[in-house]
């Protein structure tokens, strides 16, 4: 950031200097007799021209390099921001057994998603509800849908348009972790978030 800024400043100063030189009023030339033709300094002129060209090329290369570095740094910054946004979107939320209520510990996670959604108007998400391995296979498919819908309701109630979501359920069919204890069950009772549109160049809220 600092680097690119100073490069820009240097380039601007150089341009100013060139402009100033051109605009300097020149003294009126004294009338002179027709000058005797001088022998052309071909060699010296070509050497100077070559030197000037080399200097110009070096300056241009330096400017290009600076610009390239600036662009790369900006791209890296944007990618880091997008990655941060994607990670915030992907953060799962968890539920209590046989419940679809949004838990208090899920709200900050969802609030962060609201910010991302507001900062990226083309972003659309698929919200997938999941359940633990207890309970009926079929009823859990229905329960997973209620969980996805509860998440959507929360996001909509915080100002995001419902058209930006698709809700689905996997019931108990796609456990995040295997296991027959509360630790495993707690990790499987969840909603997952998948970007289905507008996922390029995500911005963090500012």
């Amino acid at each position, binding site marked *: 950031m600092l680097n690119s800024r100073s490069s820009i400043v240097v380039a601007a100063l150089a341009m100013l200097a060139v402009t100033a030189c051109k605009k300097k009023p020149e003294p009126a030339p004294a009338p002179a007799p027709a000058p005797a033709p001088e022998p052309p300094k071909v060699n010296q002129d070509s050497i100077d021209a070559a030197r000037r060209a080399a200097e110009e090329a070096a300056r241009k290369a330096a400017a290009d390099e600076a610009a390239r570095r600036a662009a790369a740094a900006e791209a890296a910054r944007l990618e880091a921001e997008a990655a941060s946004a994607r990670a915030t979107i992907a953060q799962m939320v968890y539920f209590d057994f*046989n419940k679809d209520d949004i838990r208090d510990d899920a709200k900050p996670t969802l609030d962060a998603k609201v910010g991302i959604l507001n900062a990226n108007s083309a972003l659309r998400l*698929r919200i*997938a509800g999941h359940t633990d391995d*207890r*309970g*009926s*296979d*079929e*009823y859990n*498919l*229905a*329960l997973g*849908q*209620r969980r996805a*819908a509860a998440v959507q*309701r929360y996001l909509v109630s915080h100002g995001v348009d419902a058209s930006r979501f*698709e*809700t*689905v*359920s*996997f019931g108990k*069919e796609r456990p995040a972790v295997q296991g027959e204890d509360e630790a495993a069950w707690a990790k499987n009772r969840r909603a997952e978030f998948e970007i289905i549109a507008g996922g390029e160049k995500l911005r963090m809220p500012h």
Partner: protein
Amino acid sequence: MNLARTLALASVAALCCIPSAARPQDTTATKGVRIGLTYAPGTRPGVLLLPVTGPGGDSVYAILGRDLDYGDRVSVIPADPGATSTGALNYPAYAAAGAAAVVQASVTPSGSLHIAVHDVAGARVMNAWDFPLAAPALGPDWRMAVHRGSDEVERAITGVRGVAATRAAFVRDGSIWLIDSDGYGGHAVPGTAGGLSPAWHPSGRYIAYDELAATGHQTIVVRDLTSGTTHRISAGYTLNLSPAFSPDGNTLVFAAGDDGSDLFSAAPFGNSAPVRLTPARGFSNASPSFSPDGKQIAFTSNRLGHAEVYIMDADGTNPDLLTTTAFGDQMYRSDPDWSPDGRRVAFQSQVGGVFQIMAINLSDRSVQSLTSEGRNDEPSWAPDGRHLLFTSTRTGMKQIWVLDTESGRTRQLTHNGAARMGAWSPHLEAAR
């Protein structure tokens, strides 16, 4: 009198773990004329199976014997090695061996299975049939023809058609599988990836199931098992699940929704818009099962805040909480399956946090607990209304098991690879 005494001698008292008052009567399906034998519930007539002559006779003998054993209604008496299946039968000797009936079968040169059932006390043939055996021998159609023979033998002797000529559909490795009632011929149905909750059309030719796509979108698929063609049904939501056919096969009911889920009714082979049966109030309604007269539907609903089993009229009116009595844990009863005789609804109820199979008697709403070992759920009745299959973890991995609700006898139907969501087919009739 003589017959009754013979029967009594030949009978084996069934192992009974179910209160007799709750036991269904076995003679309700009796139709037409029954000659010679009477069948008392809880007793098993002895049936002597003679060696089967003709090509493939040994296999026919093994299949008939196993079917009659799995039927749980007769006691199979192995044939005396010296017994003959040709010539005159020695009825007094069979009576002495405890046989009320003798099954005499042969594979004819033309490729039919000929079966005669003899009434031992009457010393005469009660019934005889010919079942065409489709080539190749021991192929799936050939086996099914032998199973049809077993079922008719059982009907002749007990008055109730057997359930050997049936299959189970179930879920394994993310696809729909089929397996014969005796555990043979298990195979995945091609093209059913993502399949869940298979249900049989009463013709036995079609199944419906929930296809769960990688995106989480669920669609009801009706598949012709003969041709492999499919018809897809959705109520316009991402969630469409738990299909069930009406007994006349003209209606498909399933659950669908985008928050709660409601039951919808649709034409299984048409494109008319599905009709909502349950009111859209944000509750989850799922797992419908028709009464055998097609007039009512049992289903799971959380309208009281937790899953319970309800019954409503087939048009969605008159919903009634079925599982009102206190049994098992509070809070969770689901997955009803209405017995084909109309008398009972099987369901799963959590007991100590683990599902067990129970059945509620609709006449007095008494409840029988049918399982206790391991975790047991997803009951599906056999066409006889006596056997049911279910998913059990009793040997570790989830497998499909068969339970005789009268004797309490169980057998494991599937092996090798987890299996669940079993659905017992109707009687599979011979192709005409």
